[in-house]
């Protein structure tokens, strides 16, 4: 079933494009040198201080098994239970998303990515940010 969705921020990480509800995307940030956290999973690149808050940076490429180069930019999500920064190679801007909302996988991170969908002329995976956040809280 095709659906017209609310406004989403569309961005890429590595070779893949993602769409996250615009009201959850607080800003796009350039992050400084990160502080690694001992024992953290490899997709959790580290943390940085942002306006008095400690923000974790998640490498979407490592999380999803995609290929991608290094980036110092991230989309900062503000959710009810906390903040999270997701690495971003390119940011296409805010766009309406159309398509399906079927989970792109039965387990792991892909159950929190939905599609197939299109936005800003790209095939995108529509992110369920709250689900992704809970997934990461459980160790990813």
């Amino acid at each position, binding site marked *: 079933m095709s659906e017209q969705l609310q406004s989403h921020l569309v961005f890429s990480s590595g070779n893949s494009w993602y769409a996250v509800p615009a009201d959850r995307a607080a800003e796009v940030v350039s992050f400084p040198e990160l*502080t690694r956290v001992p024992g953290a999973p490899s997709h959790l690149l580290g943390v940085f201080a942002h306006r008095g808050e400690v923000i974790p940076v998640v490498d979407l490429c490592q999380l999803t098994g995609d290929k991608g180069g290094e980036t110092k930019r991230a989309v900062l999500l503000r959710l009810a239970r906390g903040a999270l920064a997701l690495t971003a190679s390119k940011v296409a801007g805010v766009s309406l998303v159309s398509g399906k909302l079927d989970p792109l996988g039965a387990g792991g991170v892909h159950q929190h990515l939905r599609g197939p969908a299109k936005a800003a002329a790209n095939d995108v995976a529509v992110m369920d940010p709250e689900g992704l956040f809970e997934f990461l809280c459980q160790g990813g």
Partner: protein
Amino acid sequence: MAADADSKLGGVVLCRAGGHRLAFPASQVAVIEVWSEGGRPIPNAREAYALPTQPGRLLLSDTGDGVVVDTLEVATESADLLPSPRVLVGGAGGSLRGFLSARDQLWPVLQLADFSLYLAGLEPSGAGR
């Protein structure tokens, strides 16, 4: 956010292990000694970053739990403990207390004894033991 958002640290031991930063509350450190390969079998903080061990300094708690780090300095000024992001709560075997902003950088603050136990569980037959 973690529960101890408004905690104050009365002093910390700022450490480095393989270029990474980590800190321990000074109140938890009873002894600081030089440590070399073949010395007493104590977990090395480098193991948390999958790095080979090397000689350094040994921090011991009053319960005898210890961690070896590359270098350290003692910061006596009090500082605010910044809460851990929720995705990191329970990190490093539950030893992560929060973060400290010092020397214009962010440092993870760890419970010394718990971090020692966490490291010991990583690789029981690891180098430097």
